[in-house]
């Protein structure tokens, strides 16, 4: 007799492995100096407040929300840059797909310039590129969007620090305690390994989890390259309703 496992049911979340994430204070990334809490975090087993979370239906999206090449354009002109499809699967730590969850993304344009009033980099704006988009995962946890490859850009941290090309991601999951923001990098980019923000993560194999793979199979011929970026959210321990001594 085997136990019944309810995916995403009443089980507590696995504790977050804080050594796998960047610590709050990472001196190489100077902005953390005054923004990192110094007290230890207070451990709080999950209550209903942490194990529930908001949900978002497909109906709340516009058709162009996952097309950054077109979604800002006023007249149908397309954004300039290397055309990409970025896609992947949102999973939990038990390797179960996370369906129907909101994934949001934002990025600089092909020249490495953000559309923001505080941005001072000299690379020009692209009149047809806003830089934000979103998707809701399908029943198997997959999202996808079309964009242009963001440029690398310099930033005021050290004397001459550059960010590698990257796309910011925000993911919900189904519990507020799964909430995650991260950044995706591109396979083979030598800039990844000299970035102080990437370097806030100590474990090289954790960094490797942030590097999207070129996927020749899913390229669109004569149109766009494809990169795959899977995202793993915290998982829940299974809740067993019958005794089961073997592992599950």
């Amino acid at each position: 007799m085997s136990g019944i496992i309810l995916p995403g049911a009443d089980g507590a979340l696995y504790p977050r492995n804080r050594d796998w994430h960047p610590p709050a204070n990472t001196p190489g990334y100077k902005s953390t100096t005054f923004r990192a809490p110094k007290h230890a975090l207070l451990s709080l087993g999950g209550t209903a407040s942490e194990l529930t979370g908001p949900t978002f239906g497909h109906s709340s999206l516009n058709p162009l929300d996952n097309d950054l090449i077109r979604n800002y354009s006023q007249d149908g002109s397309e954004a300039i840059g290397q055309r990409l499809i970025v896609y992947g699967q949102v999973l939990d730590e038990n390797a179960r797909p996370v369906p129907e969850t909101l994934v949001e993304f934002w990025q600089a344009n092909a020249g490495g310039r953000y559309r923001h009033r505080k941005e001072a980099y000299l690379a020009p704006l692209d009149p047809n590129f806003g830089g934000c988009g979103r998707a809701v995962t399908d029943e198997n946890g997959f999202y996808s969007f079309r964009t242009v490859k963001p440029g690398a850009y310099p930033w005021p941290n050290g004397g001459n620090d550059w960010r590698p090309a990257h796309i910011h991601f925000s993911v919900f999951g189904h519990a507020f305690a799964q909430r995650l923001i991260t950044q995706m990098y591109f396979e083979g980019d030598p800039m990844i390994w000299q970035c102080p923000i990437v370097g806030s993560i100590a474990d090289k194999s954790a960094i490797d989890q942030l590097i999207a793979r070129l996927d020749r199979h899913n390229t669109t011929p004569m149109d766009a390259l494809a990169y795959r970026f899977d995202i793993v959210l915290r998982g829940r321990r299974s809740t067993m309703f019958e005794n089961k001594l073997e592992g599950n």
Partner: protein
Amino acid sequence: MLHPVPTLKETPSQTAGPYVHIGLTPNFAEIRGVYDADPGSTMLTEDTKGERIIISGRIIDGSGAVVNDALLELWQADADGSYVAPMGPNSNSAPAFTGWGRQPTNGEGVFSFETIKPGPVPGPDGRPMAPHVNLWIVARGINIGLQTRLYFDDEAEANGKDFVLNKIMDPRRRLTLIARKEDGAVPRYVLDIHLQGDKETVFFDM
């Protein structure tokens, strides 16, 4: 009970960076026409039950400067103390209250949510927790989102019994989570969030 070992590792966090508003509140960031409205900018509808309130405050860093590039999300129960049941994937009828809000801090480091006062939610032992909202904060210089709670100072008796507040050993630090009520046409609960320093807010690992 045996628990399985997770087979995958959680994707590591990275800072939301200085331009998180582009991605999560584009209309506030003056990127118009992509989304009809910024997600979570409005929590209330005419049909929402409960006492209308405003929750606001500032985010302040360890040097005493206000943090004007942060983003907060709020997750709370409804007036009866229930978290709203998930919407169906293709549902067209949004519930009268979703419980979720998202707001940027403005140039003065101020955030503000128009919402309702939540009811008490059962804790793990079945006893009610004091009314509270859950907050999640990201910004440039924050490597992993900060999780905390906001309680209400006119719920002193419930706060005194709240198992989360009582987990905070130093009673003075409990006060970093309790918002001060200011009366008005719509009552306002005010709490400054200190990322660092003598008044550092209690943040949770949950």
